[in-house]
């Protein structure tokens, strides 16, 4: 399946070949980021959940390509009056050439793609899917490590409610790597996620201790505990602050380890890593613009 007019719902929907086309296009935009390729196009942002990087980087990406952006803010829209998402989507579909949607409800992007005639990009829905973040994460590794295979990758944190972590696992699982899924037991991956990795014959190990594996890793992907997705706040309180990555934790790591994080961070990742060569999270955020430019360009123009 080509990229033109394609919906982006889950990282699972994309092959390694699809992703390679995306990464090549991303490299082009990284070298030369101004273009009028999307002049006259309107991108509709529908963010029903808080966001800094994803919403703004989609907006920046669109503007760098010459497109206009309209933002639906749930608090000031008719959703507050009780209008259904279905009707809201119909309206935004009339106003826009492509829709970018984020929601706390799983399956919202798929629903939007069913309702809208224009392409839909999932900017994160519920706990499971955040495909564009996974694409950015893979691009970051490809860029900083020079490859996406033969790596030892640790994913630390909230593997139960964290959609960035889960989408990243499904993304990196497409390549031949060893995965270490490290989390407190209460935040370990869900059965359906684990089964999917097993079915895909992914080489992975689950652990509750980063110390045991840190010296093995080429990539450490740290995630925040998703407080907002806990069904019971008492459960969140039990695991809050249960892991933290700082220079002491990383003292036995490989010299060329990279530390990634989809951001925002709370207390799980120390600021003392920011000015070391290990820091890759601000680069991830920057690459996010180029990856999203490439996505908009491929979906709307097929190039």
């Amino acid at each position, binding site marked *: 399946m080509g990229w033109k007019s394609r919906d982006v719902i889950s990282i699972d929907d994309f092959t390694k070949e699809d992703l390679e086309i995306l990464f090549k296009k991303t490299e082009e935009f990284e070298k030369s980021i101004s273009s009028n390729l999307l002049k006259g196009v309107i991108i509709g942002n529908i963010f029903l959940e808080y966001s800094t990087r994803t919403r703004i980087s989609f907006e920046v990406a669109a503007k760098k390509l010459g497109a206009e952006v309209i933002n639906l803010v749930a608090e000031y829209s008719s959703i507050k009056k009780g209008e259904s998402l279905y009707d809201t989507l119909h309206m935004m579909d009339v106003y826009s050439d492509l829709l970018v949607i984020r929601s706390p409800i799983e*399956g919202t992007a798929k*629903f939007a793609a069913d309702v809208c005639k224009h392409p839909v990009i999932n900017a994160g829905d519920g706990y499971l899917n955040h495909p564009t973040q996974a694409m950015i994460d893979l691009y970051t590794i490809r860029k900083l490590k020079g490859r996406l295979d033969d790596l030892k990758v640790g994913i630390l944190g909230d593997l139960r409610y964290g959609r960035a972590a889960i989408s990243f696992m499904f993304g990196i699982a497409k390549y031949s790597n060893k995965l270490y899924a490290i989390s407190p037991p209460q935040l370990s991956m869900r059965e359906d996620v684990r089964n999917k990795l097993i079915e895909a014959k992914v080489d992975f190990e689950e652990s509750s201790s980063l110390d045991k594996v840190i010296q093995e890793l080429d990539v450490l992907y740290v995630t925040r505990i998703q407080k907002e997705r806990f069904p019971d706040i008492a459960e969140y309180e039990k695991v809050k602050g249960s892991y933290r990555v700082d220079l002491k934790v990383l003292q036995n790591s490989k010299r060329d380890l990279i530390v990634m994080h989809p951001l925002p961070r709370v207390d799980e990742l120390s600021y003392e890593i920011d000015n070391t060569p290990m820091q890759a999270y601000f680069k991830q955020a920057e690459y996010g613009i180029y990856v999203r430019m490439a996505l908009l360009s491929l979906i709307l123009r097929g190039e």
Partner: protein
Amino acid sequence: MEEVEMKVAKIRNGTVIDHIPSGKALVVLRLLGLTKKVENTLTIAMNVKSKKLGVKDIIKVENLELDPSLVSILALIAPMATINVIRDYKVYEKSKVVLPEYVEGILKCPNPTCISRQQNEPIVSKFKVIEKSPLKLQCMYCYRYVYENEVIEQLVEGK
């Protein structure tokens, strides 16, 4: 019909549900709401030898022909079942239940934060059949797997 079925008496009018997985006859009765229909005599044979299934269950319901909407529910639990409509002691019509590739509208997703559970949205649940026996479905919206015991629980609860 196979010889083993002759162990129980023929019925004059009604329905014979054959090739039910062994041990599932009672669940099928509940799913189809047949336990509440006191006017219809039921005959159940369990653990009957079968060429197709090894062992199977059979249900005979007198004076009732199944509503087609119930047949699709039956397919979830007994995907190999055959339904024989009996009129005047003879098989008037014989059909196999067919488990479709997708199950729409019959079940609800067990995930409360799935878009298909949002009450103010005009949305119909949709599941892909991943495995027929034991049944394993996957929600087309939130990707959650739904297993046979959850399906039975949900369908029986609704009866």
